[in-house]
């Protein structure tokens, strides 16, 4: 872990419509976008002396691709005015396949954005409809091709599996089509429903069931098998990259307790054992900044014990696992010495393995990472 440089996340809280499964904060009042962009720039000023430099920038949402090229440019300029952006930084934007034209993508590329994450979710139209997505599989194909034409050589695709009654063959077909694009990065999320989401209510109302455990495991294992066979590294529970350098450098920071600054409503930040997060609603967020206040909802000072627990559940999500030396240095306890009997039992049961002075989950272990954290 050479890279301890902080990452910057900017939450764009606008969506034209709400996808049924999504619990991220967003609103459809796009007329607030201009005011929001000024506010984000204002928020940066609060932190210019706390966070000096970043080597990743991630524009997430919401739907960042609802913003015009000019608006995105404004945000990036504000970033450059307030912070140092390292050379060779990873600069990602999430886009919705239905929103993007070739020209739009070309201009994003010109702004210095070098990584795209396309929320394709599925190549199956009935699935897309069920999920409440605005785009079709045809638009998804178009968006990907346009991104390549626009010169993006680091493209990630988001997919969702494990819908009620989804046949694993339909999912395999989606994976096969996805692979035909040869994306650099893939995120495959098993559908889980927060109680607040519309799809949760629909599931309840129609008596639909999420995939049961065995089936979920089957999807998880099959996905891993197909993608690793195709040459991808399964480097986190839901994430796959073609090479080490194509892993999402920004997201890795979350799993490694690397500092990050989150701007925009509901965004979370982490620095020096402290985590804080912004108010989730746009209007109070705008109001605070207009009054010269940080729009922080809450902050927490994390004890070493809490950090250690986080390090365990985050580490167990990743292929690289938990480095004993680093863990001892940061959290003061010798994992291997303290937990030897249970570690041996878990090794015996093929859930973890010792590799390179690290405790690493096996594929089966990754599937129960949350429990591995409780050893």
């Amino acid at each position, binding site marked *: 872990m050479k890279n301890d440089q902080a990452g910057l996340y900017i939450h764009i809280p606008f969506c034209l419509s709400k996808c049924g499964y999504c619990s991220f904060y967003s609103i459809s009042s796009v007329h607030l976008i201009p005011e929001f962009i000024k506010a984000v720039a204002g928020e940066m000023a609060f932190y210019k002396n706390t966070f000096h430099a970043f080597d990743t920038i991630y524009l997430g949402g919401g739907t960042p691709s609802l913003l015009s090229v000019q608006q995105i440019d404004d945000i990036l300029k504000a970033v450059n005015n307030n912070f140092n952006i390292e050379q060779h930084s990873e600069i990602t934007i999430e886009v919705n396949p239905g929103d993007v034209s070739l020209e739009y993508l070309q201009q994003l590329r010109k702004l210095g954005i070098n990584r795209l994450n396309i929320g394709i979710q599925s190549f199956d139209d009935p699935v897309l409809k069920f999920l409440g997505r605005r785009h079709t599989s045809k638009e998804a194909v178009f968006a990907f091709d346009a991104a390549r034409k626009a010169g993006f050589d680091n493209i990630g695709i988001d997919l969702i599996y494990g819908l009620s009654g989804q046949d694993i063959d339909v999912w395999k077909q989606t994976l096969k089509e996805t692979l035909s694009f040869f994306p650099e990065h893939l995120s495959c999320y*098993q559908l889980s429903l927060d109680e607040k989401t519309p799809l949760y209510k629909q599931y309840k109302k129609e008596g639909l069931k999420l995939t049961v455990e065995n089936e979920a495991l089957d999807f998880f294992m099959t996905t891993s098998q197909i993608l690793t066979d195709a040459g991808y590294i399964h480097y986190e529970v839901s994430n796959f990259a073609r090479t080490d350098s194509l892993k999402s450098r920004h997201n890795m920071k979350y799993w490694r307790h690397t500092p990050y600054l989150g701007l925009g409503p509901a965004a979370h930040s982490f620095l020096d054992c402290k985590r804080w997060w912004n108010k989730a609603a746009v209007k109070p967020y705008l109001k605070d900044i207009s009054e010269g206040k940080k729009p922080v909802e809450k902050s927490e000072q994390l004890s070493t014990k809490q950090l250690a627990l986080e390090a365990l559940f985050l580490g167990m999500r990743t292929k690289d696992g938990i480095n004993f030396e680093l863990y001892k240095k940061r959290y003061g306890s010798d994992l291997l010495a303290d937990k030897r009997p249970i570690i041996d039992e878990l090794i015996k049961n093929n859930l973890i393995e010792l590799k390179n002075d690290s405790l690493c989950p096996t594929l089966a272990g990754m599937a129960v990472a949350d429990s591995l954290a*409780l050893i």
Partner: protein
Amino acid sequence: MKDKSPPNHWRAFFNTLMENIRNFSIIAHIDHGKSTLADRLIQFTGVCNERNFQDQMLDNMDIERERGITIKSNAISLPYRAKDGKEYILNLIDTPGHVDFSYEVSRSLASCEGVLLLIDAAQGVQAQTLANLYLAMEHNLAIIPIINKIDLPSADIERVLEEIDSELGLDPDTHIKCSAKEGTGIEDVLEAIVLRIPPPKGDAENPLAALIFDAHYDSFRGTIIHCRVFEGTVKSGDIIKFMHNGTTYKVEEVGHFLLTRTKREKLSAGDVGYIIAGVKTVADVRTGDTLTLQERPCSQPLPGFKEVKPVVFASIYPIASDDYQDLADSLDKFKLNDASFIYEKDSSAALGQGFRCGFLGLLHLDIVQERLEREYDLSIILSVPSVRYRFTLKDGKVVYVDNPTHYPDPAEIAMGEEPYIRAAMMLPERYLGTVMKLCMEKRGVNSNMNYTGPGRVELSYEMPLAEVIFDFYDRFKSVTQGYGSFDYNIIDYRESNLVLMDILVNGEKVDALSQIVHRDRARARGLNACDRLKEEIPRQMFKIAIQGAIGGEIIARSTISAFRKDVTAKCYGGDISRKRKLLEKQKAGKKRMKMIGSVSIPQSAFLAVLKSDND
């Protein structure tokens, strides 16, 4: 408890003549409104004003209030000016409501001349109504049937009257209607107590004979003895003697139970009150014992004394071994107020240092466990409860074993014996078949049956106590739909083909789960234990094998499959704190489990093996 003077308006009552005293209990099926009626009587007679009134006045412990059962006996003296213009002292003696404490109940009733038999106007006569009636009749008490909850829309007074006649065999014309909740009919109840319960008999000049019906511990004054004086007089300065063992103490104070203890000059024949005499612990006092004066003792003790012995044994271990000293201190304190609870040091290969404890029954055990956790803030594990077995070894030595860990070497055993009880059951005839089937399944023998009224049966069986502990009471209640009542007496030890059954979790023997069982039942009990443990032990990341074994032979097994997927799909910046909080909670839950080898076993598993799943 601080001493406090009574209100002026009834200070004068204290020179009450014996003919103006009434001693009574309220008896009822659970939830028929016993505590509420007691509250209303207390309020009506003005012992307590609105300000210091709270519901369930006589149930002092949280656990009593929550479970709606009375565990400790309690007494209170109520002053009452009756319609005849005379002033009375009505002594209400509250009684526990469970078979584990039936001896305490019998001593409380022995202290009374009459009872209020409370019946819910909607539910009518229930199992405990009948069982309580029989208890009262055994003590030749005056019985006043009271129909409570007449305010309920579902009240059916006609039907209840008919049941009083046909099922209880009481004259329905003698009933009183009230609603303790609404406070109606309370004066009628008080008048009936005065008119229909006879005053106590006895002579204040005779040698002292006082019945101890309870005792509690006060951190300032030591043991407070609760008693009913039958003959004679006791006052401070007297030297009193416990008749069962002859120990003597000097009386420091006597008095009445008002809302708080209230000192009096003396207690005389007919009185209910307390005695403080420098007795260190409640264990030095025996419920049912007779108190007399050393100088001029009564010729013989009051009838009915028996030494209450624990019949169920289990070991208590702290979940965290660091808490051992805390547990030891807490048991010490706990024992001060619970004479029937006994304990000694014990240790387990699987669970470490702990204590072997004796209880009156499973409810008592349950209550002790809950109070230790609640009032002393301890997290504890209980081993599987056991009765006390008797083994005659080949060398002629006789050993008693209440802890499976101390099971003798099977090669040395000449004979094993287990305690038997006589179970007395009352039930509606329609349940007779299922109850007999249950009793036979529990190795019941020598049944006896009697019709006590139309459709009512009294049934008795001789059964091994161990079978009764093993989920008998719950199943009996269930098969009789709550209409059956049950009581038992230990009769003797009988020869039995006993074996030690061990439980292995992932190949490791968990001694706290071992049981001594009848050989013919071993396989069924083993399977049951394996199944129950399978339900109680949460799935873990790896497969867990549970086995029942006699010696080296595996007689039962079950497997808890591993859970194989629990990870959430997304965990980014905004998810981490929430996820940590969730895991912190799970971690705290896990702390309440005992790690045995690499398996976490929850507290509940240890008691669950005694429950069966067939109802």
